[in-house]
């Protein structure tokens, strides 16, 4: 069963008197444990699409199912709950909470969202920090680690709840080439280890090269779907 199923998805915004269409009748599916990238120029609708998949922004029309749930008619509370249970986020600016240590940042979703017991939390967080190579940095605060390390922590935070889907909006935009490569490899490794689906919105050719499926968007329309083998579909 597909993890994400979008049918005739449409998103419009009212900008003053003008109705702006950000996404036009988009159809796609994303399978579990895949490494998918949405690419396209600025304003093409990549981030909007990612926000809709992430239950942050409801579609204006069409149907969108994530992990078997119709997310179109979820209210604010239900959407937050759904995100907490099924979706992890990795942001361009890392978005770690500055007053929490590395360990506590990764622990946050288990503590404040999923209410895990302390011993299970500790075990799971340590496991994830080890997996992203930050096992010995748990007591540091975000200001004490590098950008690449911050993004590793962000990946661990996204995966700590056993999320089925991780949405990453330009995750390498603020990293140098070498660090970006390491983060991409880390995410791939995490996908293999935890069977998590990674969906990116990016301009970064490194991510495009590594993605198994690349969706190209332009003016809110899905122009083509390109798979790992290089085959393109309209």
């Amino acid at each position, binding site marked *: 069963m597909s993890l994400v199923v979008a049918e005739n998805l449409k998103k419009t915004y009212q900008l003053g008197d003008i109705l702006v269409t950000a996404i036009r009748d988009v159809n796609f599916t994303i399978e579990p444990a895949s490494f998918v990238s949405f690419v396209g120029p600025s304003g093409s609708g990549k981030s909007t699409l990612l*926000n809709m998949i*992430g239950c*942050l*922004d409801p579609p204006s029309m069409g149907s969108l199912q994530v992990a078997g749930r119709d997310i179109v008619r979820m209210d*604010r*509370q239900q959407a*937050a*709950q*759904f*995100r*907490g*249970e099924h*979706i*992890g*986020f990795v*942001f361009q*600016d890392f*978005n770690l*909470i*500055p*007053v*929490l240590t590395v360990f506590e940042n990764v622990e*946050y*979703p288990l*503590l*404040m*969202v*999923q209410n895990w017991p302390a011993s299970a939390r500790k075990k799971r967080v340590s496991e994830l920090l080890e997996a992203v190579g930050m096992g010995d940095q748990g007591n540091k605060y975000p200001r004490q680690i590098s950008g690449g390390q911050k993004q590793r922590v962000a990946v661990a*935070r*996204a995966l700590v*709840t056993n999320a089925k889907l991780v949405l990453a909006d330009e995750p390498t935009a603020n990293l140098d080439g070498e660090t970006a490569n390491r983060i991409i490899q880390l995410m791939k490794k995490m996908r293999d280890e935890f069977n998590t689906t990674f969906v990116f919105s990016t301009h970064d050719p490194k991510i495009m090269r590594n993605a198994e499926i690349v969706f190209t968007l332009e003016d809110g329309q899905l122009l083509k779907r390109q798979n790992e083998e290089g085959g393109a579909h309209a």
Partner: protein
Amino acid sequence: MLNVIKIATRNLRRYQRRTLLTSTLITLGVVAVLLFISITGSFKQMMVGQITDSMIGHLQVHRKGYLASIDNLPLNRNLNPQQVAKVTQLLGDTAEIESFSMRIKLGAMFSNFTETTNIRLNTVIPEQEVKTVPLLTDRIVQGEKKETLLQKGQILIPELIAKGMKVKVGDGVVLVANNKDGSVNGKTFTVSGVLEGISGPGGRDGVIHLDDAKELLRISGVEVSEIAIRLKNMDDLPGVFSVLKAELESIRDKNDRPVFEVHTWEKLSPFYNIAKMIDLMTLFIKIMLVAIVLVSIMNVMIMAVYERINEIGTIAAIGTLPGKIMALFVVEGFLLGVLGTVVGTVISLISIAAINAAGLTFDFGRQSNLVLAPTIGAGDVITIVLIVIGIAVAASVQPAFKAARMDPIAALRHV
């Protein structure tokens, strides 16, 4: 909840200077209010004590209508022997009453054999009076401060008359009074002391023995104008007042009108209005404190939300429920309130102890060297603490609600 507190605490530590400034403001407000309450409270208590213990007593019983015409000191509104018996029996049966004193109040002509003036007199049974208003002897500024107050044939004269008529302790004087039938009688007295005058009813009256008054007024049997009552504990005043009022009002004359009236010191003394003003000032000071806390906490929390919009977007995106986001900010305001209040309360209590230890004195009217002895009840401290913390929480609710309702996408885009 502990985790919410932990994160809120760290956020407060993150903006240390702002937290320090805001909590200092709250601390100063709390200190100002608690010190004001304790000092004015002790001043009020001292003044009330002076008035009740040296003049009025805690309660007074009169014949109905006497108080309305007290300026004329009407002898025809005295309590008759049967009425006195009823009242004294009731007072004797009331456990909370420590003592009571029967008085006849009258107006007379005062002569030093060369000059004459008017005098208002309070006539008492000394043993009863000293028990009921124990500070009366302290008002004797010239002459011996005897435990027996005075004997038959002696008079305590008010300071003003002593000065105006140039009368000294040991001098002989004559009192001439009309009895209720209109006939006139005179009697000589020896001045045994001069009484300090204080404001309020009876504060500038002379004092003679009740038996002398009966002789002067040709009264036979027991007849009194008022009965002053002292309670064992002044906190029992409202309860005893209602019981006495109910009991005395149930005694009716043949026209079914109440025979007696009972009043507390509050109704009898003009100082009660000053006491009320002190209470009113305390209320205004409390309102100012509320305003300080409200504005400072709200300002800080609005800033906190504004500065952390991106962070709010992040925690909302990763699934933190709106209620929990709201709790994070409300707890932050709550902790700021707690911090300021705890420090303020500790400083206030230390200051109160220090003022007591220093033994500061002040003058009030003609009374000098009154020792400033501020005290504060646990009830007042708890009330202020709860008000401040409650307002701190209330002030955080609006910014916290705004944070909880924030659109995660807009928040994440915020730079």
